[in-house]
């Protein structure tokens, strides 16, 4: 399964949108947080988990999905939300805690919910799994079109939720795909110190489902593997597990000095930037011109800028609005 040129451009552009948005967030996040770093200060308070470097996982999977398909994501959700088509303005306003945000400021960056495109996430490790299994069960029971994709980090696979969910999905043969973004680090603990197997795809064997490992953080390879797994799920042949080697280009959260990370690895980050690699690929293989690239870059940047402007200009909710929306 290989992407068309159009699909490749789509993936490139959505990687850029996510990256630009995060670069702008990164800059604004630090406002009010220097010289002393205080997480509660500035226009964007709270924890901030940037996804830069991991964009290939999001686009390589979500390019195959329709709005009616379900995605559950993690505490590091921006790239996936962008690729799933979450309303960018409302998401950004949510990250700023504004009244116009997806939930009016009740969730923030770790709790992005956009039912219009069936996207949700959770700040709790491993808890993307159960809801994706349930959504897949719902589609099966209702005989309704659609698959569910649960994203999770490689640190989540040692949680019970992961194993329980895979088993349940396999026993019930549900249309769900589990996508592990392996960035090598669970906050400060390397995968080698936390996980007994080198690659988690072999854990699929324990549940009698196909497992795939995708090295290289390459959107085209992810496209191929995810495309097959999603097609399989759509045919009613059951769940699959995919582990993708990816790259955490930032700290676990902003403010993380990453002293635990080898200097050589940190020095390599820029050189391993998947967006640079994708641009080079498109220019050499797909003959993307400088002018076309500029057009895409400008389009992506403008979308991110517009979202930031929308968020900045939006009003804050009133304090007492916190009492609303506990129940429907």
């Amino acid at each position, binding site marked *: 399964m290989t992407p068309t040129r159009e699909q490749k451009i789509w993936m490139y552009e959505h990687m850029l949108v996510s990256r630009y948005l995060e670069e702008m967030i990164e800059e604004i996040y630090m406002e009010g947080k220097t010289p002393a770093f205080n997480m509660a200060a500035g226009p964007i308070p709270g924890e901030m988990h940037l996804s830069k470097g991991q964009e290939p996982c999001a686009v390589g999977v979500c390019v195959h999905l329709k709005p009616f398909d379900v995605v559950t994501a993690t505490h590091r959700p921006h790239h996936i939300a962008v690729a799933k088509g979450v309303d960018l303005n409302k998401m950004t306003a949510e990250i700023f805690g504004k009244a116009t945000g997806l939930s009016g400021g009740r969730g923030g960056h770790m709790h992005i919910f956009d039912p219009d495109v069936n996207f949700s996430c959770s700040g709790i490790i491993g808890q993307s799994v159960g*809801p994706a299994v349930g959504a897949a*069960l719902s589609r099966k029971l209702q005989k309704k079109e659609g698959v569910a994709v649960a994203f999770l980090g490689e640190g989540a696979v040692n949680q019970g939720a992961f194993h*329980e969910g895979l*088993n349940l999905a396999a026993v019930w043969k549900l249309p769900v795909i589990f996508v592990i973004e392996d960035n090598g680090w669970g906050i400060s603990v390397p995968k080698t110190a936390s996980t007994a197997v080198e690659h988690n795809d072999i854990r699929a064997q324990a549940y009698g489902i196909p497992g795939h490992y995708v090295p290289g953080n390459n959107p085209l390879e992810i496209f191929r593997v995810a495309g097959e797994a999603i097609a399989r799920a759509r045919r009613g042949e059951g769940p699959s597990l995919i582990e993708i080697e990816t790259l955490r280009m930032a700290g676990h959260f902003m403010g993380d000095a990453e002293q635990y990370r080898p200097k050589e690895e940190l020095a390599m980050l820029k050189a391993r930037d998947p967006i640079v690699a994708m641009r080079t690929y498109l220019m050499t293989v797909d003959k993307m011109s400088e002018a076309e690239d500029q057009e895409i870059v400008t389009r992506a940047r403008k979308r991110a800028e517009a979202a930031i402007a929308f968020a900045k200009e939006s009003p804050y909710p009133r304090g007492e609005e916190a009492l609303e929306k506990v129940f429907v």
Partner: protein
Amino acid sequence: MTTVTSNVRKQTIARAMAEAIAQEMRTDPRVFVMGEDIGQLGGVFGNTRGLFEEFGPERVRDTPISETAFIGAAVGAAADGMRPVVELMFVDFFGVCMDAIYNLMAKNTYFSGGKLSIPVVLMTATGGGYSDAGQHSQCLHATFAHLPGMKVVAPSNAYDAKGLMISAIRDDNPVIYLFHKALQGMGWLGTEPASIVHVPEEAYTVPIGKAATVREGRDVTIVGITSGVHHALKAAEQLEQKGVSAEVIDLRSLVPLDREHVINSVRKTGRLIVVDEDYQSYGVTGEIIASVVEADISMLKSPPKRVAYPDIPIPFSRPMEQWALPNPAKIVAAYESMVK
């Protein structure tokens, strides 16, 4: 010869729950049931009996022993338009799956700004008194009622059990449905005869968040839930022998809590005793008393009393467990100490 046909249709809570679920499943294809041993076995506590035979394995799904997965799945299915009824066999087992309950089920509506409805009914067995010790005998009323985002109901009799179940299934929010084992009418877990009452055949609702006065009185208000209601009713009979008129209130719901109902009763009687089989500290008893005191402390003729489970793990040995449990005698003694 004439035949007198009785239109009294006495049922156990277990049967009333199963009947309620079946009736909703017949009219609403979105309703389905998941849990451990809820299929062919009909539930360890009998409350899904007959469903598997009528609706089959697609809609009545036995799960692996994976509460995190299937309760998490209920959240995902509910968000996708289904109305799952899931069973956590014993409430004591919440430890393995609380993330799915209080971090997902209870919060996803709020985190979606009210756009996502999570209509899950989580039914789970509570209560002790049959020497099953501290991992299978708890009530944990306050544990669930304390956490925002979930409604919590707990019937004391079969009529309420059916009506509350139908209300819970039709509610667009998550509902924790606590049923007390000794009230299920299962025999082997002890049976409280007063929980077996007339249950109309047709579907009906009992509103969530409304308490009921189950006995009227003038001298003291005794508030309880599930087993506590039955202890209170027995205590009220004993008090009547002594010339004391006790009013008994069945809370029926913990969230929303019908504070007004209790306050109105205490305004009349001037005295309050709260009975709860859950642990005493930081619990339902304290919440009820605080609600009354906050409303108007002057209506109390004496300090309120509570009869609750002591702050200890539930012991196995019969003399120890029975000593620790609330009972009618303790309620009578509480009243007597108030008027001394």
